[in-house]
Protein backbone atom coordinates (compact mmCIF):
# COMPACT_ATOMS: atom_id res chain seq x y z
CA UNK A 1 0.00 0.00 0.00
CA UNK A 2 2.78 2.35 0.97
CA UNK A 3 4.61 1.62 -2.24
CA UNK A 4 1.49 2.18 -4.29
CA UNK A 5 0.92 5.57 -2.72
CA UNK A 6 4.55 6.49 -3.35
CA UNK A 7 4.24 5.38 -6.96
CA UNK A 8 1.17 7.53 -7.41
CA UNK A 9 2.90 10.49 -5.82
CA UNK A 10 5.96 10.22 -8.02
CA UNK A 11 4.02 9.71 -11.21
CA UNK A 12 1.10 12.01 -10.47
CA UNK A 13 1.74 14.16 -13.54
CA UNK A 14 1.78 11.19 -15.87
CA UNK A 15 -1.28 9.61 -14.24
CA UNK A 16 -3.31 12.81 -14.36
CA UNK A 17 -2.29 13.25 -17.99
CA UNK A 18 -3.38 9.71 -18.82
CA UNK A 19 -6.74 10.19 -17.10
CA UNK A 20 -7.59 13.51 -18.76
CA UNK A 21 -6.21 12.54 -22.15
CA UNK A 22 -8.06 9.25 -21.92
CA UNK A 23 -11.27 11.12 -21.24
CA UNK A 24 -10.67 13.38 -24.26
CA UNK A 25 -9.93 10.49 -26.56
CA UNK A 26 -13.03 8.76 -25.25
CA UNK A 27 -15.08 11.85 -26.18
CA UNK A 28 -13.42 11.90 -29.57
CA UNK A 29 -14.19 8.26 -30.30
CA UNK A 30 -17.73 8.47 -28.95
CA UNK A 31 -18.53 11.33 -31.25
CA UNK A 32 -21.73 9.64 -32.29
CA UNK A 33 -23.08 8.46 -29.00
CA UNK A 34 -25.67 9.74 -26.60
CA UNK A 35 -23.15 11.75 -24.55
CA UNK A 36 -21.90 13.50 -27.67
CA UNK A 37 -25.44 14.36 -28.65
CA UNK A 38 -26.15 15.96 -25.29
CA UNK A 39 -23.01 18.06 -25.62
CA UNK A 40 -23.96 19.09 -29.15
CA UNK A 41 -27.39 20.00 -27.82
CA UNK A 42 -25.79 22.09 -25.10
CA UNK A 43 -23.64 23.74 -27.72
CA UNK A 44 -26.70 24.54 -29.84
CA UNK A 45 -28.51 26.03 -26.89
CA UNK A 46 -25.86 28.20 -25.26
CA UNK A 47 -23.33 28.85 -27.99
CA UNK A 48 -25.88 29.67 -30.66
CA UNK A 49 -26.60 33.13 -29.38
CA UNK A 50 -22.94 34.18 -29.55
CA UNK A 51 -22.78 33.12 -33.18
CA UNK A 52 -26.02 35.00 -33.69
CA UNK A 53 -24.30 38.26 -32.71
CA UNK A 54 -21.35 37.72 -35.05
CA UNK A 55 -23.77 36.77 -37.82
CA UNK A 56 -25.45 40.17 -37.57
CA UNK A 57 -22.13 41.77 -38.44
CA UNK A 58 -21.15 39.42 -41.26
CA UNK A 59 -24.65 39.52 -42.76
CA UNK A 60 -24.32 43.25 -43.22
CA UNK A 61 -21.14 42.77 -45.23
CA UNK A 62 -22.67 40.14 -47.49
CA UNK A 63 -25.89 42.05 -48.20
CA UNK A 64 -24.91 42.57 -51.82
CA UNK A 65 -24.32 38.88 -52.56
CA UNK A 66 -27.51 37.96 -50.74
CA UNK A 67 -29.50 40.39 -52.86
CA UNK A 68 -28.06 38.97 -56.06
CA UNK A 69 -28.82 35.46 -54.92
CA UNK A 70 -32.40 36.31 -54.05
CA UNK A 71 -32.95 38.08 -57.38
CA UNK A 72 -31.68 35.02 -59.26
CA UNK A 73 -33.83 32.70 -57.20
CA UNK A 74 -36.84 34.93 -57.83
CA UNK A 75 -36.22 34.94 -61.55
CA UNK A 76 -35.98 31.17 -61.54
CA UNK A 77 -39.30 30.84 -59.75
CA UNK A 78 -40.95 33.32 -62.14
CA UNK A 79 -39.74 31.27 -65.08
CA UNK A 80 -41.17 28.13 -63.51
CA UNK A 81 -44.54 29.81 -63.03
CA UNK A 82 -44.59 31.06 -66.61
CA UNK A 83 -44.09 27.62 -68.18
CA UNK A 84 -47.06 26.05 -66.54
CA UNK A 85 -46.49 22.88 -68.50
CA UNK A 86 -43.50 22.16 -66.31
CA UNK A 87 -45.89 21.39 -63.48
CA UNK A 88 -46.73 18.19 -65.29
CA UNK A 89 -43.11 17.20 -64.82
CA UNK A 90 -43.16 14.32 -62.40
CA UNK A 91 -40.26 15.62 -60.32
CA UNK A 92 -42.15 18.78 -59.47
CA UNK A 93 -45.24 16.92 -58.40
CA UNK A 94 -43.13 14.68 -56.27
CA UNK A 95 -41.43 17.65 -54.69
CA UNK A 96 -44.76 19.08 -53.65
CA UNK A 97 -44.77 16.77 -50.66
CA UNK A 98 -41.98 18.75 -49.12
CA UNK A 99 -42.40 21.59 -46.66
CA UNK A 100 -39.84 24.37 -46.89
CA UNK A 101 -38.70 26.38 -43.87
CA UNK A 102 -36.37 29.29 -44.62
CA UNK A 103 -33.41 29.61 -42.25
CA UNK A 104 -30.37 31.81 -41.90
CA UNK A 105 -26.87 30.43 -41.33
CA UNK A 106 -25.29 31.94 -38.25
CA UNK A 107 -22.17 29.82 -38.08
CA UNK A 108 -20.43 27.72 -40.68
CA UNK A 109 -17.02 26.22 -41.17
CA UNK A 110 -15.38 24.67 -44.20
CA UNK A 111 -11.80 24.03 -43.22
CA UNK A 112 -12.17 21.16 -40.78
CA UNK A 113 -12.55 17.51 -41.63
CA UNK A 114 -16.00 17.43 -40.04
CA UNK A 115 -17.92 20.64 -40.50
CA UNK A 116 -21.17 21.71 -38.88
CA UNK A 117 -23.57 24.54 -39.65
CA UNK A 118 -25.58 26.45 -37.03
CA UNK A 119 -28.98 27.72 -38.17
CA UNK A 120 -31.28 30.24 -36.56
CA UNK A 121 -34.39 28.04 -36.54
CA UNK A 122 -35.17 25.55 -33.79
CA UNK A 123 -37.85 23.36 -32.28
CA UNK A 124 -39.93 26.49 -31.71
CA UNK A 125 -40.29 26.79 -35.48
CA UNK A 126 -41.02 23.11 -36.01
CA UNK A 127 -37.54 21.90 -36.89
CA UNK A 128 -36.70 18.32 -35.93
CA UNK A 129 -33.64 16.12 -36.09
CA UNK A 130 -33.09 14.38 -39.40
CA UNK A 131 -34.56 17.05 -41.66
CA UNK A 132 -32.63 17.96 -44.80
CA UNK A 133 -31.01 21.30 -45.57
CA UNK A 134 -30.77 22.49 -49.19
CA UNK A 135 -30.49 25.61 -51.30
CA UNK A 136 -31.56 26.15 -54.88
CA UNK A 137 -28.06 25.15 -55.92
CA UNK A 138 -27.38 22.03 -53.91
CA UNK A 139 -27.59 19.76 -50.93
CA UNK A 140 -26.18 21.39 -47.78
CA UNK A 141 -26.65 18.95 -44.91
CA UNK A 142 -28.88 17.19 -42.40
CA UNK A 143 -30.13 18.57 -39.08
CA UNK A 144 -28.23 16.83 -36.33
CA UNK A 145 -29.39 18.55 -33.16
CA UNK A 146 -32.11 21.05 -32.25
CA UNK A 147 -32.55 23.45 -29.35
CA UNK A 148 -35.42 25.82 -28.82
CA UNK A 149 -34.14 28.54 -31.13
CA UNK A 150 -31.19 27.04 -32.97
CA UNK A 151 -30.35 23.95 -34.93
CA UNK A 152 -27.00 22.37 -35.81
CA UNK A 153 -26.72 20.64 -39.14
CA UNK A 154 -24.08 18.18 -40.26
CA UNK A 155 -22.64 19.73 -43.40
CA UNK A 156 -22.04 17.96 -46.70
CA UNK A 157 -18.42 18.66 -45.78
CA UNK A 158 -18.42 15.92 -43.14
CA UNK A 159 -16.83 12.51 -43.01
CA UNK A 160 -20.10 10.72 -42.31
CA UNK A 161 -22.25 12.52 -44.85
CA UNK A 162 -23.23 10.56 -47.95
CA UNK A 163 -25.77 11.60 -50.51
CA UNK A 164 -27.28 9.45 -53.24
CA UNK A 165 -26.87 10.99 -56.69
CA UNK A 166 -27.77 10.27 -60.29
CA UNK A 167 -26.52 11.48 -63.64
CA UNK A 168 -29.05 13.89 -65.02
CA UNK A 169 -28.72 12.60 -68.59
CA UNK A 170 -29.09 8.85 -68.07
CA UNK A 171 -30.23 8.19 -64.51
CA UNK A 172 -27.26 6.14 -63.39
CA UNK A 173 -26.88 6.17 -59.61
CA UNK A 174 -23.94 6.65 -57.30
CA UNK A 175 -22.95 7.91 -53.88
CA UNK A 176 -21.30 11.27 -53.36
CA UNK A 177 -19.05 12.13 -50.44
CA UNK A 178 -16.49 14.74 -49.48
CA UNK A 179 -12.77 13.94 -49.48
CA UNK A 180 -11.72 16.41 -46.81
CA UNK A 181 -9.69 19.29 -48.21
CA UNK A 182 -11.25 21.29 -51.04
CA UNK A 183 -14.66 22.69 -50.17
CA UNK A 184 -15.48 23.27 -53.83
CA UNK A 185 -15.40 19.63 -54.86
CA UNK A 186 -16.60 16.21 -53.75
CA UNK A 187 -16.14 12.77 -55.22
CA UNK A 188 -17.97 9.63 -56.30
CA UNK A 189 -15.98 6.44 -55.87
CA UNK A 190 -16.75 3.12 -57.54
CA UNK A 191 -18.70 4.42 -60.48
CA UNK A 192 -19.19 1.52 -62.94
CA UNK A 193 -16.96 1.98 -65.99
CA UNK A 194 -19.44 0.92 -68.65
CA UNK A 195 -21.46 4.09 -68.12
CA UNK A 196 -20.70 6.79 -70.67
CA UNK A 197 -19.78 9.90 -68.71
CA UNK A 198 -17.94 12.97 -69.86
CA UNK A 199 -16.51 15.97 -68.05
CA UNK A 200 -19.21 18.57 -67.55
CA UNK A 201 -22.15 16.20 -66.98
CA UNK A 202 -24.63 17.45 -64.40
CA UNK A 203 -25.31 15.51 -61.23
CA UNK A 204 -28.48 15.74 -59.12
CA UNK A 205 -29.94 13.90 -56.13
CA UNK A 206 -31.70 10.63 -56.86
CA UNK A 207 -35.13 9.46 -55.82
CA UNK A 208 -34.04 6.94 -53.18
CA UNK A 209 -33.61 9.36 -50.33
CA UNK A 210 -36.31 9.95 -47.77
CA UNK A 211 -34.67 13.23 -46.76
CA UNK A 212 -33.94 15.07 -49.99
CA UNK A 213 -36.30 15.56 -52.91
CA UNK A 214 -35.36 14.18 -56.29
CA UNK A 215 -33.54 16.41 -58.74
CA UNK A 216 -31.78 18.90 -56.46
CA UNK A 217 -28.78 20.00 -58.52
CA UNK A 218 -25.40 19.19 -56.95
CA UNK A 219 -22.59 19.82 -59.40
CA UNK A 220 -20.81 18.97 -62.62
CA UNK A 221 -18.17 16.34 -63.29
CA UNK A 222 -14.70 17.85 -63.09
CA UNK A 223 -12.40 14.91 -63.52
CA UNK A 224 -12.67 11.19 -64.26
CA UNK A 225 -10.00 8.77 -63.14
CA UNK A 226 -9.89 5.03 -63.70
CA UNK A 227 -9.03 3.13 -60.55
CA UNK A 228 -6.11 0.86 -61.40
CA UNK A 229 -7.12 -1.83 -58.89
CA UNK A 230 -10.71 -2.58 -59.77
CA UNK A 231 -11.40 -0.72 -63.00
CA UNK A 232 -14.12 1.47 -61.50
CA UNK A 233 -14.18 5.21 -62.10
CA UNK A 234 -13.27 7.71 -59.40
CA UNK A 235 -15.18 10.83 -60.37
CA UNK A 236 -14.57 14.23 -58.82
CA UNK A 237 -17.39 16.74 -58.91
CA UNK A 238 -17.41 20.53 -58.90
CA UNK A 239 -20.11 21.58 -56.45
CA UNK A 240 -22.51 24.29 -57.62
CA UNK A 241 -22.91 25.67 -54.12
CA UNK A 242 -20.06 27.72 -52.68
CA UNK A 243 -20.05 26.61 -49.04
CA UNK A 244 -17.92 29.58 -48.11
CA UNK A 245 -20.63 32.02 -49.14
CA UNK A 246 -23.69 30.29 -47.77
CA UNK A 247 -26.15 32.66 -46.20
CA UNK A 248 -29.76 31.52 -46.46
CA UNK A 249 -30.94 27.92 -46.78
CA UNK A 250 -34.15 25.92 -46.77
CA UNK A 251 -34.82 23.26 -44.18
CA UNK A 252 -37.04 20.68 -45.83
CA UNK A 253 -39.27 18.02 -44.46
CA UNK A 254 -41.68 15.52 -45.94
CA UNK A 255 -44.55 13.90 -44.08
CA UNK A 256 -44.40 10.90 -46.34
CA UNK A 257 -40.75 10.20 -45.61
CA UNK A 258 -41.47 8.52 -42.29
CA UNK A 259 -44.07 6.33 -43.97
CA UNK A 260 -41.51 5.29 -46.57
CA UNK A 261 -38.94 4.50 -43.91
CA UNK A 262 -41.41 2.50 -41.85
CA UNK A 263 -42.34 0.40 -44.85
CA UNK A 264 -38.71 -0.23 -45.72
CA UNK A 265 -37.84 -1.23 -42.16
CA UNK A 266 -40.49 -3.94 -42.15
CA UNK A 267 -38.37 -6.02 -44.49
CA UNK A 268 -35.46 -7.61 -42.62
CA UNK A 269 -32.04 -6.87 -44.02
CA UNK A 270 -31.16 -10.51 -44.73
CA UNK A 271 -34.22 -11.31 -46.77
Amino acid at each position, binding site marked *: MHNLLRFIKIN*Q*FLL*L*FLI*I*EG*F*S*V*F*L*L*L*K*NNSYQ*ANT*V*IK*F*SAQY*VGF*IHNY*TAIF*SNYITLKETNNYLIEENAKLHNLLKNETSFIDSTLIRNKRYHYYPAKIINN*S*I*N*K*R*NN*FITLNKGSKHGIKEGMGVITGQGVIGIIRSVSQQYA*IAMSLLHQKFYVGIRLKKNNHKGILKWE*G*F*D*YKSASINDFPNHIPIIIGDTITTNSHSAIFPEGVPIGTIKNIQKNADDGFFNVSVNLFEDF*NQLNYVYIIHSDEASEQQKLEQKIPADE
Partner: protein
Amino acid sequence: MNKYFIKYLGLLPLYVLLQVVVLNEVLFSTYINPFLYVILIISLPLKTPKWFLLIYAFLLGFSIDLFSVSLGFHSTATILIAFIKPFISKITIPHNILGDTDEITLKKAGNKAFITFSLFLIFIHNSCLFITEHLSVNLALFGKIMASSLVTLIIVLITQLFQQDK
Protein backbone atom coordinates in the same frame (compact mmCIF):
# COMPACT_ATOMS: atom_id res chain seq x y z
CA MET B 1 1.60 31.85 -8.25
CA ASN B 2 -2.02 32.52 -7.33
CA LYS B 3 -1.76 35.74 -9.29
CA TYR B 4 -1.14 33.71 -12.44
CA PHE B 5 -4.01 31.34 -11.79
CA ILE B 6 -6.46 34.21 -11.74
CA LYS B 7 -4.87 35.98 -14.70
CA TYR B 8 -4.90 32.91 -16.91
CA LEU B 9 -8.38 31.82 -15.92
CA GLY B 10 -9.52 35.32 -16.85
CA LEU B 11 -7.67 35.21 -20.18
CA LEU B 12 -9.26 31.87 -21.10
CA PRO B 13 -12.72 33.16 -22.15
CA LEU B 14 -11.09 36.08 -23.99
CA TYR B 15 -8.90 33.85 -26.11
CA VAL B 16 -11.69 31.35 -26.70
CA LEU B 17 -13.92 34.14 -27.98
CA LEU B 18 -11.12 35.57 -30.10
CA GLN B 19 -10.51 32.14 -31.58
CA VAL B 20 -14.13 31.29 -32.25
CA VAL B 21 -15.51 34.65 -33.31
CA VAL B 22 -12.57 36.02 -35.26
CA LEU B 23 -9.90 33.48 -36.22
CA ASN B 24 -12.19 30.60 -37.13
CA GLU B 25 -14.25 32.94 -39.32
CA VAL B 26 -11.43 34.67 -41.16
CA LEU B 27 -10.58 32.21 -43.87
CA PHE B 28 -7.15 32.56 -45.43
CA SER B 29 -7.44 29.28 -47.27
CA THR B 30 -8.85 25.83 -46.55
CA TYR B 31 -5.32 24.76 -45.69
CA ILE B 32 -4.75 27.42 -43.06
CA ASN B 33 -6.52 27.68 -39.76
CA PRO B 34 -4.48 29.47 -37.08
CA PHE B 35 -5.02 28.39 -33.47
CA LEU B 36 -3.94 31.34 -31.39
CA TYR B 37 -5.28 29.92 -28.12
CA VAL B 38 -2.17 27.73 -27.92
CA ILE B 39 -0.29 30.83 -26.72
CA LEU B 40 -1.91 30.42 -23.30
CA ILE B 41 -0.25 27.04 -22.84
CA ILE B 42 3.03 28.30 -24.30
CA SER B 43 3.34 31.30 -22.02
CA LEU B 44 2.35 29.74 -18.69
CA PRO B 45 5.38 29.99 -16.33
CA LEU B 46 7.75 27.02 -16.17
CA LYS B 47 7.05 26.24 -12.54
CA THR B 48 3.26 26.18 -12.89
CA PRO B 49 1.94 23.25 -10.84
CA LYS B 50 1.53 20.41 -13.27
CA TRP B 51 -2.01 19.55 -12.23
CA PHE B 52 -3.01 23.13 -13.03
CA LEU B 53 -1.33 22.96 -16.43
CA LEU B 54 -3.23 19.81 -17.41
CA ILE B 55 -6.62 20.86 -16.10
CA TYR B 56 -6.22 24.30 -17.62
CA ALA B 57 -5.37 22.70 -20.97
CA PHE B 58 -8.47 20.53 -20.72
CA LEU B 59 -10.71 23.52 -19.95
CA LEU B 60 -9.21 25.47 -22.84
CA GLY B 61 -9.51 22.66 -25.37
CA PHE B 62 -12.96 21.66 -24.22
CA SER B 63 -14.36 25.18 -24.53
CA ILE B 64 -12.96 25.49 -28.05
CA ASP B 65 -14.53 22.11 -28.82
CA LEU B 66 -17.91 23.24 -27.56
CA PHE B 67 -17.92 26.22 -29.87
CA SER B 68 -16.75 24.39 -32.94
CA VAL B 69 -18.86 21.21 -32.40
CA SER B 70 -15.78 18.99 -32.62
CA LEU B 71 -15.98 17.07 -29.39
CA GLY B 72 -12.61 15.89 -28.05
CA PHE B 73 -10.36 16.97 -30.91
CA HIS B 74 -9.03 20.24 -29.53
CA SER B 75 -8.87 19.02 -25.94
CA THR B 76 -6.81 15.96 -26.91
CA ALA B 77 -4.29 18.09 -28.79
CA THR B 78 -4.11 20.78 -26.11
CA ILE B 79 -3.62 18.32 -23.23
CA LEU B 80 -0.92 16.61 -25.24
CA ILE B 81 1.12 19.80 -25.62
CA ALA B 82 0.55 20.68 -21.96
CA PHE B 83 2.00 17.29 -21.07
CA ILE B 84 5.11 17.56 -23.24
CA LYS B 85 5.69 21.26 -22.56
CA PRO B 86 8.11 20.65 -19.62
CA PHE B 87 10.22 18.28 -21.72
CA ILE B 88 10.33 20.61 -24.72
CA SER B 89 11.22 23.58 -22.55
CA LYS B 90 14.16 21.64 -21.13
CA ILE B 91 15.72 21.11 -24.55
CA THR B 92 14.90 24.43 -26.18
CA ILE B 93 15.12 27.10 -23.49
CA PRO B 94 18.60 27.63 -21.95
CA HIS B 95 18.88 27.38 -18.17
CA ASN B 96 18.95 30.45 -15.96
CA ILE B 97 17.29 32.68 -18.53
CA LEU B 98 13.85 32.42 -17.01
CA GLY B 99 12.94 32.73 -13.37
CA ASP B 100 10.59 30.13 -11.99
CA THR B 101 7.61 32.44 -12.01
CA ASP B 102 8.35 34.34 -15.21
CA GLU B 103 5.93 33.94 -18.08
CA ILE B 104 7.54 32.57 -21.21
CA THR B 105 7.58 35.50 -23.62
CA LEU B 106 9.64 36.56 -26.59
CA LYS B 107 11.34 39.26 -24.55
CA LYS B 108 12.30 37.13 -21.59
CA ALA B 109 13.24 33.88 -23.31
CA GLY B 110 15.06 35.45 -26.23
CA ASN B 111 14.10 35.27 -29.91
CA LYS B 112 15.75 32.01 -30.85
CA ALA B 113 14.65 30.02 -27.81
CA PHE B 114 11.08 31.32 -27.92
CA ILE B 115 10.60 30.67 -31.62
CA THR B 116 11.94 27.11 -31.52
CA PHE B 117 10.02 26.38 -28.33
CA SER B 118 6.68 27.64 -29.62
CA LEU B 119 7.17 26.15 -33.09
CA PHE B 120 7.70 22.71 -31.51
CA LEU B 121 4.52 22.99 -29.45
CA ILE B 122 2.42 24.47 -32.27
CA PHE B 123 3.60 21.82 -34.71
CA ILE B 124 2.78 18.99 -32.32
CA HIS B 125 -0.60 20.53 -31.52
CA ASN B 126 -1.55 20.93 -35.17
CA SER B 127 -0.29 17.48 -36.14
CA CYS B 128 -2.29 15.83 -33.36
CA LEU B 129 -5.40 17.84 -34.20
CA PHE B 130 -5.38 17.32 -37.96
CA ILE B 131 -4.34 13.67 -37.86
CA THR B 132 -7.12 12.77 -35.44
CA GLU B 133 -9.53 14.79 -37.57
CA HIS B 134 -8.62 13.21 -40.92
CA LEU B 135 -7.52 9.80 -39.66
CA SER B 136 -5.07 9.48 -42.51
CA VAL B 137 -1.59 10.68 -43.38
CA ASN B 138 -0.93 12.05 -46.83
CA LEU B 139 0.83 14.90 -48.55
CA ALA B 140 -2.13 17.28 -48.53
CA LEU B 141 -2.54 16.77 -44.79
CA PHE B 142 1.16 17.43 -44.23
CA GLY B 143 0.83 20.65 -46.22
CA LYS B 144 -2.12 21.66 -44.07
CA ILE B 145 -0.17 21.00 -40.86
CA MET B 146 2.87 22.97 -42.06
CA ALA B 147 0.87 25.92 -43.37
CA SER B 148 -1.29 26.18 -40.25
CA SER B 149 1.70 25.87 -37.93
CA LEU B 150 3.60 28.64 -39.67
CA VAL B 151 0.64 31.02 -39.70
CA THR B 152 -0.09 30.26 -36.05
CA LEU B 153 3.55 30.99 -35.21
CA ILE B 154 3.39 34.32 -37.05
CA ILE B 155 0.24 35.35 -35.15
CA VAL B 156 1.78 34.25 -31.85
CA LEU B 157 4.84 36.40 -32.61
CA ILE B 158 2.60 39.37 -33.41
CA THR B 159 0.93 39.11 -29.99
CA GLN B 160 4.41 39.05 -28.46
CA LEU B 161 5.31 42.34 -30.15
CA PHE B 162 2.33 43.98 -28.47
CA GLN B 163 3.48 42.68 -25.11
CA GLN B 164 6.89 44.22 -25.56
CA ASP B 165 5.46 47.69 -25.97
CA LYS B 166 4.20 47.71 -22.42
